[in-house]
């Protein structure tokens, strides 16, 4: 994607405008407006079914796989380019916007093959290039030291936390600008969770993170900005300190204090 660089592109790197989204006749997002800053870590919070995952999965258009899903109106722009315009090639969009899923799901292949999967489907065959990319991405995901001696053993033999970091390595191997994470620690124990959070903190500035989380403490610990979703609408979006310290909206306050059901 060739992107026009505007003066305030940093402030409106990912720009969601009046975004309405539906599964068949069931609308799940209503007039969502959201500006995400370049290189920020943004947390999307809210009760289950509030539409935060749907929004996340619309940013790399992976929700296109859901047959009945459709954009009703509005737009999502990255660097000013509307993702749903016909000129956007969804394949190159997804190469630029990596995604890590809730359930760590490396392919039952070798660690190496998992790390270079994205490069392989992009048609890269050069052995050195693949090996270099594998090492680089495994280092980024803080997994290299643990797996460098067994790159060719099966990835399903790793622990849960290692498998999730391998999934992060797999996503960063394509050198995306944006990393979407859909509850990346929901299936992990507290120790593995802490390692992932450390990793995200270390990678701050290298990628623009958008993270869906149910863990309020996690949002507080890692996010620069937090957006609170309720029933398909953005209730409040602000600096994380503001959201948790001084929420403007009654709904936000009752959610973060655990009184919203």
């Amino acid at each position, binding site marked *: 994607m060739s992107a026009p660089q505007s003066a305030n592109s940093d402030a409106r790197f990912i720009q969601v405008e009046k975004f309405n989204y539906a599964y068949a006749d069931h609308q799940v997002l209503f007039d969502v407006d959201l500006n995400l800053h370049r290189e920020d870590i943004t947390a999307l919070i809210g009760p289950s079914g509030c539409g935060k995952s749907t929004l996340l999965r619309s940013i*790399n258009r*992976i929700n296109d*796989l859901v*047959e009945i899903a459709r954009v009703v109106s509005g737009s999502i722009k990255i660097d000013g380019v509307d993702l749903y315009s016909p000129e956007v090639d969804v*394949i*190159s969009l*997804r*190469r630029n916007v*990596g*995604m890590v*899923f809730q*359930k760590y*799901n490396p*392919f*039952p292949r070798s660690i190496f093959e998992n790390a270079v*999967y*994205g490069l*392989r*489907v*992009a048609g890269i065959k050069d052995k050195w290039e693949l090996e270099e990319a594998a090492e680089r991405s495994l280092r980024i995901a803080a997994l290299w030291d643990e797996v460098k001696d067994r790159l060719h053993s099966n990835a*399903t033999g790793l622990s849960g936390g290692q498998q999730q970091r391998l*999934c992060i390595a*797999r*996503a960063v191997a*394509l050198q995306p600008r944006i990393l979407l994470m859909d509850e990346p620690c929901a299936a992990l124990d507290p120790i593995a969770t802490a390692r992932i959070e450390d990793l995200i903190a270390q990678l701050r500035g290298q990628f623009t993170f958008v993270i869906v989380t149910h863990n309020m403490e996690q949002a507080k610990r890692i996010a620069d900005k937090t957006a609170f979703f309720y029933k398909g609408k953005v209730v409040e979006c602000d600096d994380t300190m503001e959201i948790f310290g001084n929420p403007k909206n009654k709904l936000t306050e009752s959610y973060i204090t655990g009184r919203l059901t």
Partner: protein
Amino acid sequence: MSTPPRHSQPDPANPFAGDQTRIQMQETLMRWLLRIGTLFVVSVTVAIVLHIVIKGAPVAFRSEWPFVNVKFLTELPATLHVIQDNQGKIIETDVNGADAVKKQLGANLRQEKTISYSGGGILGPIVGTAMLVLVSVGVALFLGVASAIYLSEYAKHGKFIEMVRLAILNLAGVPSVVFGLFGLGAFVLTAPVFTNIPLDRSVFTIPLGFTTLSFQGWDTCVLSGGFTLAFVILPVIITASEQCLQAVPQGFRETSMALGATRWQTIWRAVLPFATPGILTSSILGIARAAGETAPIMFTAALAFKDKLPWQKDQLPLPVDASWFAHWEHSVTRFLGIFTESVQALPYHIYTLAARIPQNEYSERAQYGSVFVFLVLVASLATTSIWMRRRLRAKYKW
């Protein structure tokens, strides 16, 4: 709502005592009924296997080295000549040996009997069944996996897909003799062939300049029979393949697509490799089915008797100074010719022995020998399938 029966006078020492005799009797009765039913099924199965082993094993095995009846497994079926002399001694021989034996006995000959197909061995049927299975599984795997992938990965849910699924299910219920007639009409009599001289019965012809595409059928041959059998096992393979594809986690597909793969790349790299073990296992069960069917090959491929193997065909010898191209063409024609021959097949051979010739101890012997070999072949296929599934499941788990 009925109240449970109670004792008129509850036992103060045991408040849980109850009048249980009727319920207990019902319980015992039901348990024995189910047990007897199961025992019946098991004993019938054991009886069938024992019957075949007792009658068939002596034909296939020998008590001295090499313990296997080599002749039975390596010779083509032939007419058996049974000659008896005046002392009651019985000599079994083939058509060539019969004259010599008769000459030697001279006036001592009491009687000679000939029994069709019961001498020699069953190599012809074994080879024929193997070739039919090869062709049918090749065709059915290609068509079956292709449509399973389309149904599972590409097709959008809707009325049309429901109709397709219903049609596949119905295909599984079609009697096999109907497939046989379909094969006769479609493959034996109408399938297209390249030929320079189309037959008169050709449905229609398309001239191509250098040759003609004539819809005159493939005749009764391995190809016709194999394609017909492929349609018999197709529903099994489609259904099983679709289940194997559905068993691959949806997350693999999403992850692959999120990493910039196209749908086909996703199928090829992140779905199919993990579904293949299951698809192969189920296709082995398809092999057992294809090997066992008689009706679909009766009109399309099988002969009651044939004194040659498919590759033992007379072909004009090449001239001594033939070019390499002529040699190459000659070998290709020869290879393809194997599949345009009609063959004997095990199930049809058993049917011939059991129902088409006068019954006696000699035909019965050949019949049970064939059934025994057939059973061993099918059972070993099923065992391979189970063994493969176990091994591959251990390898590809997620």
